[in-house]
């Protein structure tokens, strides 16, 4: 894949580039500001952009804003946002534009290289990758909520589904058959009163929207 890295810290940018090169991907540009990010997307049309949230000049949430802006100008451009901390507020904002190809992960996740590369490839293909911590934040829900009626296994499946994993992935990570996952998913949607949904990005959106009470 052709990747651009938007990261102002040279140390992290080099690390990321090393990791991606090792995994056989090509880093076509490394930039450090929101404007350069814009230009790089327009110029290179990368398969995916990996973006840090904090960028100059204010080092706040420029990365989120820039990602939303870039997606407005280049609909469908896959973007993976990385951050030292995650806030479900930002996840909601990133997903609000609709369409697939969005990821939002803690920088820590980079350390699990194969999982990180999986997420990267999933997003590049138009899928979703939400950090488990975002989902954990969303799952701290009110008392007497339909989520309480889920079995522990169904909660696991729900979390993985919300993170953007496919039924195949979920089956693999829970060591069950795909059919079992399919059944759990059906139960979950019935218990939460959501219309049955196919796999993929739309399903993630439906679950996340439900969890954030939108």
């Amino acid at each position, binding site marked *: 894949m052709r990747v651009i890295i938007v990261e102002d810290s040279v140390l992290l940018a080099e690390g990321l580039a090393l990791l991606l090169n090792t995994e056989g991907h090509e880093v076509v540009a490394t930039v450090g500001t929101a404007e350069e990010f814009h230009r790089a997307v327009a110029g290179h049309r990368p398969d995916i952009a990996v973006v840090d949230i904090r960028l100059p000049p204010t080092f706040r949430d420029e990365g989120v804003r820039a990602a939303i802006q870039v997606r407005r100008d280049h609909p469908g451009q896959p973007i993976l946002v990385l951050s030292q*901390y995650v806030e*479900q*507020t930002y996840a909601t904002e990133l997903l609000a534009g609709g369409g697939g190809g969005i990821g939002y992960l803690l*920088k*820590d996740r980079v*350390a*699990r290289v194969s999982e990180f590369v999986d997420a990267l490839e999933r997003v590049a293909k138009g899928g979703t990758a939400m950090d488990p911590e975002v989902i954990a934040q969303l799952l*701290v829900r009110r*008392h007497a909520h339909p989520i309480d009626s889920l079995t522990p296994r169904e909660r696991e499946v729900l979390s993985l589904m919300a993170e953007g994993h496919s039924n195949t992935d979920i089956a693999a990570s829970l060591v069950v058959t795909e059919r079992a996952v399919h059944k759990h998913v059906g139960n979950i949607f019935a218990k939460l009163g959501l219309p049955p949904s196919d796999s993929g990005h739309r399903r993630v959106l439906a679950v996340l929207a439900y969890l954030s009470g939108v």
Partner: protein
Amino acid sequence: MVWRAVRATGRLVLDLLLVPLCVVALLVTVVTMVLSATYLGLVLLPFAIRLNRGVASLARRNAGAWLGERVTATYQPIRGGVLTRVRVATGDPQTWRDLGFLALHVVTGPLGAGLALGLWGALGWGLSIPLWWFAPLPEHAIHLPWALDSWARVAVTVPLFLGLVGAVGFRVVPLVAEGLFRLAKAILAPRHVRLAERVTEALDAHGQELRRIERDLHDGAQARLVSIAMRLGIAERVLADDPAKAAALITEARLSTEETMTELRDIIRGMYPPILADRGLPGAVAALAARSPVPVDVETAGVGRLPAAVEAAAYFVIAEALTNVARHSRASSAQVRVRRTGNRLEAEVTDDGRGGADEDGGSGLAGIRRRVSAFDGETTLTSPPGGPTTLRVELPCE
């Protein structure tokens, strides 16, 4: 001006009503002090001092009502054994200030009220001048520079008299009230003591915070980094001879770095939450609300950016309050209102739970109070049994 004089008179008369209480409290104190050569006296002394505190608090409330601000003092709590109680009660400088105030008030109370009542008496007397002329009274009863012997003279004299008395009296009475109540405040709630206490508390809290962060970094992140470095060092040495062992060590090192990152994130969150830096108080409070198990309605319109320290204080207070709501209140919903009026930031957290929140119940309310008072702010908690519970804090933000 007239209304102010009326209010001043009311406050001064209330102050006058305190005089008998002052006398009683002083007498009781003197008697118990004399008795304190005996055991009985030692037992009674703290009670006498409590009585003083009670009377002083009434005076504070009256002064506060006139000055339009809270006049408060911090007392050392009187607890423990007989001797400890006596030591605390007599060792608290405010005890002696209270006593001084009570003694002073026995003099100033009647003076202030006398002056105020005198004003109204004089006005009444002035109004009665026509009667005096009209009624057959002994001539020497009216001491005026001129004789009141015609309606024309009465018509001039009465307005002149009322005008003079009013012009002077309506100004002087509020001034006297202001002076007396300011004096009361200076004695009963000395500013340097309040500030010194707050500075001490703030420094204490800050020091504890620094020590906690130091400990967390030292015992946590730093120790983990050392262990990571060691593992990587060993892996480097055994790589050629025992690649499997090296791989296991490297995996351990990676897991350890992940734990370190989580830990650092928690420490940073406890110091100054990143979302606060990114989005200011409104964004951070919205994120808190979204994370609360109890549905929270948030109103933060017009708050904007504030000094970082104030934002952090308000954030932690609201976070703590929402944690309490989730843990103790059994509420089904809560509201957070943050408003900025002039140079003050007001934050209010209300829930529809069962009420009866207890300051001493380890609910973090003491921490909230400490945090807020370090900023010279105010904390008010209302939580009647059955609810609703409202925690309100005010912080200066300029």
